[in-house]
């Protein structure tokens, strides 16, 4: 093996890592907010338009309640819970290629860029969710969660899954560029089968069991169950299953980063 580090930096490994994360976080936040014209406004408008569109659609088909829960709350929390996964995994996917210039500095590792992007995206989704809840309050619909901790547990599980998936795909895309297309094909139907816009509880038994192998569905449904105590979530709701999958994905992603670090930097 090639031994590389003979000079020990007096700052210490963790201190350096925290400095790098902080610097990267500020930098990512600046680009995310000021990259294009009024990028900060689109950050908010994009999900709001999505949610409002869905609410209008549901109102048109006269669905006032889903599984004993207010339709607006069902949609807002479902969509935001799912974007916790999709936003963070999407941003993480391209974290390495967007930051190649920075690997000129030895202390910046590819895995740092992915971790920082996931953290930023998670924070953004939380802020947008709070704005949507606040907005609903102004319109007279109280959708404040009855069990906020359960909500957060669902959100965090989905974020962790997004991070794990992002860690894996970021390596895969850089090692085998074609894999990006295949992964996109796999993730595209996830929005449909995770029970974001139709209740999985209404699907007949043999097929429902198949869909419940998707860990994201458990996260989305847990968040809703935390919002309303009267919500009839699908049977066999298992948040631990989501966490098991997420931790496995994070572990695999970190292992891949460690294994291929030199190759990821060298491009």
């Amino acid at each position, binding site marked *: 093996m*090639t031994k*590389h*580090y003979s000079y020990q930096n007096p700052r210490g490994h963790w201190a350096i890592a925290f*400095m790098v994360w*902080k610097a990267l976080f500020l930098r990512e936040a600046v680009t995310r907010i000021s990259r294009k014209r009024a990028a900060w406004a689109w950050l908010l408008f994009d999900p709001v338009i999505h949610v409002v569109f869905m609410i209008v659609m549901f109102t048109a088909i006269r669905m006032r309640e889903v599984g004993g829960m207010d339709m607006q709350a069902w949609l807002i929390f479902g969509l935001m819970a799912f974007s916790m996964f999709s936003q963070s995994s999407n941003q993480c996917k391209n974290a390495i290629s967007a930051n190649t210039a920075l690997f*000129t500095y030895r*202390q910046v590792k590819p895995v740092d860029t992915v971790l920082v992007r996931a953290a930023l995206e998670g924070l953004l989704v939380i802020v947008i969710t709070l704005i949507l809840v606040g907005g609903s309050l102004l319109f007279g619909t109280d959708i404040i969660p009855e069990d906020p901790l359960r909500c957060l547990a669902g959100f965090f599980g989905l974020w962790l899954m997004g991070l794990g998936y992002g860690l894996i795909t970021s390596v895969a895309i850089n090692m085998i560029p074609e894999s990006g297309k295949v992964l996109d094909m796999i993730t595209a139907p996830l929005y449909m089968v995770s029970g974001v816009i139709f209740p999985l509880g209404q699907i007949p038994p043999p097929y429902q069991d198949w869909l419940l192998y998707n860990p994201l569905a458990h996260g989305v449904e847990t968040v809703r169950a935390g919002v309303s105590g009267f919500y009839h979530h699908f049977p066999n709701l298992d948040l631990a299953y989501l966490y098991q999958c997420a931790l496995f994905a994070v572990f695999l992603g970190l292992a891949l980063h460690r294994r291929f670090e030199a190759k990821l930097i060298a491009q």
Partner: protein
Amino acid sequence: MIRVEDVYKRYQTDHGPGKWVLQGVSFVIPPKVSVGLIGGNGAGKSTLLRLIGGIDQPSRGRIERRCRVSWPMGFGGGLQGSLTGRQNAKFVCRIHGHEEDIAEKIHSIETFAELGDAFDEPIKTYSSGMRSRLQFGLSLAFEFDVYISDEATSTGDAAFRKKASTAFKQLIDSASIIMAAHSESTLKEFCTAGIWLHKGTAQWFDNVQDALSAYKASLPKR
């Protein structure tokens, strides 16, 4: 001190492993000796600088760095195009642990680079000369034992080169430079020793002039 021991390097191409760029390169750079890398285009100068800078790993062999080595300056590496010079400078200060005296550092970078209002413009609007001014300013703002420059001086104008050279002469008691350059005058101005890269191997010369002569002697005569 930097010790390079029997280093081999080749890159992965789309069609399997590429040709060997470096084949058994060994030398030791003593403390406080400035070295110029000399060789034709594609001789492996940039590759060697990246290996010494720790950005890339050798395919075989080992490199030991017993001192603080800067990142390789040159060709816009380490600068993000969509951000301004100031934002890039802040980032570099932060990752080097200068959160408290960031204002001071930014000021010294700004005065050294002499970019004027362009310091607050995105890097992608910079000319290559402006980039190298910023890069030199950035790395000189931090204390390193060895600074690595990959043609960072070649795009700067005469005034800048003079300034960079004076700045280095002030550091000469504490620091040294490893540089790749094609300009003979630049090499003589900055370096004492020389390394001649030829056909994948490296030859050490205590005097940079000898390295230049060896390089010139290898060129085909007409």
